[in-house]
């Protein structure tokens, strides 16, 4: 059984809600199966916070083993490097995280805040916050790139705002059951970050034929005008449906790339930057020349049902 301690730093609790939304495995089944023992979670633990203070002390001193440290929220260093914009019992949370991470077998940054800085790190970054081992897409955050947890892993980044529910509980299960955790270049588990949001989007036929929406609220593809980052964003939103129901792009909401280190991008989130007719950022791996060539062909080949945007999504 793996012990788990969950800390919230500069967080909105969205990842905690996501954790509670996970159904397979659910948190309660991980506990019931004997995979995870929750030493502390701010919204589940019933002990007074003096208990957390005691746990922190014991773990810091090496008197108690910690297998998995989960951190939710950005790591706030303001004001003036003190970290006191976010404190627990008069101690900056970043100091607590640093101390606990040094004792943990594995450290999970749950959500894009903890992984990369997330929304609070968007300019002008009023709280001077960073991610745990990245600052947006720059390697090195609160920890430098060489930092490793006791099991020899860097901080495992569960990108997402919030993280997909199943990504959280499945990663916990992998660690608890001793399954291998392979990471990508941003230290995200490849098991959940090996595909694009674009794959599995129900609007894909519109994309292929270059049938574009210019206004929100429509049925067609949102890549060309409305800022959809599905073709450049690694995440499982369209293959593991959210809340077992849907995904943002299926519901007509552009993908804002929330699993990526640079979320939120600077500049208008609902607009696609273009050079002439062509988006500045093309789908992953697509060359500009090929793109220009097939874009016009595709438009010309679009069947009426697609051109009329009659297909439901």
């Amino acid at each position, binding site marked *: 059984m793996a012990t788990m301690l969950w800390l919230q730093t500069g967080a909105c609790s*969205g990842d905690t809600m996501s954790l509670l939304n996970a159904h397979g495995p659910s948190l309660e089944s991980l506990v019931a199966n004997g995979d995870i023992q929750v030493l502390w979670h701010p919204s589940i633990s019933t002990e007074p916070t003096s208990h957390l203070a005691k746990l922190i002390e014991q773990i810091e001193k090496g008197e108690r083993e910690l297998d998995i440290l989960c951190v939710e929220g950005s790591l706030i260093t303001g004001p003036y490097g003190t970290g006191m914009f976010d404190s627990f019992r008069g101690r900056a949370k970043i100091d607590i995280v640093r101390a606990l991470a040094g004792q943990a077998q594995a450290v999970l940054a749950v959500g894009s805040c903890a992984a990369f800085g997330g929304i609070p790190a968007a300019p002008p970054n009023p709280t001077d916050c960073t991610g745990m081992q990245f600052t947006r897409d720059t390697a090195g955050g609160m920890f430098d790139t060489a930092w490793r947890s006791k099991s020899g892993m860097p901080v495992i980044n569960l990108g997402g705002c919030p993280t997909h529910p199943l990504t959280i509980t499945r990663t916990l299960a992998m660690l608890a059951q001793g399954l291998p955790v392979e990471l990508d270049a941003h230290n995200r588990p490849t098991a959940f970050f090996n595909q694009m949001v674009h794959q599995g989007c129900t609007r894909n036929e519109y994309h292929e034929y270059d049938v574009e929406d210019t206004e929100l609220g429509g049925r067609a593809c949102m890549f060309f005008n409305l800022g959809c980052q599905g073709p450049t964003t690694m995440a499982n939103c369209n293959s593991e449906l959210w809340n077992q129901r849907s995904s943002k792009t299926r519901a007509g909401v552009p993908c804002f790339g929330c699993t990526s280190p640079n979320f939120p991008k600077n500049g208008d989130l609902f607009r696609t930057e273009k050079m002439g007719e062509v988006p500045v950022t093309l789908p992953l791996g697509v060359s500009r020349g090929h793109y220009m060539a097939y874009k016009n062909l595709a438009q010309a080949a679009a069947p009426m049902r697609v051109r009329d945007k009659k297909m439901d999504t």
Partner: protein
Amino acid sequence: MARKTVNIELNRVEGDLEFQVDLEGDRVADARCIGTLFRGFEQLLIGRAPKDALVITPRVCGICGTAHLFTTALALERMNDVPVPAHATIIRNLCLMAENVQSDIRQTFLFFAPDLLNPRYADHALAPALEKAFKPLQGSVVLSALDVSRTLVEIVAIFGGQWPHSTYMIPGGVTRPATVSDIIDCREIVDKAVRWFEKEVVGDSLDNWLSLDTAERFLEWVDEPAHRDTALGLFTRFARDQGLHTYGAGTDQFLSAGAHYDPVEWQAPYGEQRTLLAGGVYDGATHKIEAFRPELITEHVRHSWYRPYPDGRHPFEGETVPDYQPESDRYSWAKAPRYDDRVVETGPLAELLTGGDALIVDLLKKEGANTWLRQFARLRRASVLLDLMRAQLKALSQELNNPHYLAPADGSLDDGDGFGFVQAARGTLGHWVQVRNGEITRYQIVTPTAWNASPKDSAGRHGHWEQSVIGLPLTDIDNPIEISHVVRSHDPCLVCTVHFVGAGKKVRYGV
């Protein structure tokens, strides 16, 4: 990494809370509700495109992101009276109701109920039954509550793609119309939640339960065999036996902006709130309701870590420049919002009082505000909303062929001043936005938690939570469970901590 703070407003959104009290003997002599987290959300919005707020503000809070999204859409629409079709308003209402019911259920059974298992109560006759029902992650009611709350937010996922955090409400409507399948799916989800509520929570039909309209009838009803051992029966009998209905009042002014928009009446040009549950300020002494007037809201910073200004300011004129002064009589990252210079309470209790729930009004008249009633009102609201959700689904089925989105006229989001209110899970939430030349120049958020958890204001008046514990006698100063009950009955954000200073002796700060 030092930063000069610029002269614009930012925020104090709900975040971590600590609560400090001063004791005299075993009595709470003074209290400080301390927001320990500052994230600067309002600053992030300055200079961005107006619609970006629809992506950013939901992330203020993972528990009530739908409420923030809704409020942002309203504020942007109000800048230039952007029309919204009824189809969209109904979908927005449904999603907010789903979020609020989910929150009411989780708050009651995951956050409030565990305190009933406190060691203090180990010898109580009801202790074994409470343990069986409410043990964290194991109790029968807790497990079923987790399941049903998880299912309820699927309604948001149907229309918005995911919960939490999506951006499906946009100025002029929503991103996707309802389909016949959606209506069937949502109905199935609501019905499942109703069945759960009837079986686990009240042990009676929803109609019967909602028809209880006097304190007397309710107290008889709750003692009947079919109801006494349900979740509500256990909670009520135990809480009242321990006297939770005798303390924790706080202020007697209750604020609600009005809950859920009337899809037909709430149309441009937007005047007063037109809501399904009426809003207003309910006076707990006279039992009269005044109309809600947004212009009477001000925020004070006298005891907050922001650059000082005298008295209070309306959110359109406010500023929020951090000024961290730990060694002073200022003690919080929360500002102190006031309504017409009054300290107010917001939340489900206020929502049902102004909305005219006969049972809640009668209980308040008989016993005054208290800890049990506040928590009870939360469960009551969940059932009122489940009932309303069915009605909204019916209304939605009439809208299937009507537009879900009307593109705003060119330029209508480029310049203007707007504001919006919704009743989030924890109470009245307001956003104020100012846009110039296509960029946000001001953004101001006043959260429900800011109302309830405010520190003292310029006149030295304590915030509502502070008032609700001052004077409270503690049975055991080393296990101040009474404070926990009072604070949690307000649905503090998840990480609220009762930080207890100086057990056994009087500790004084410069306040």
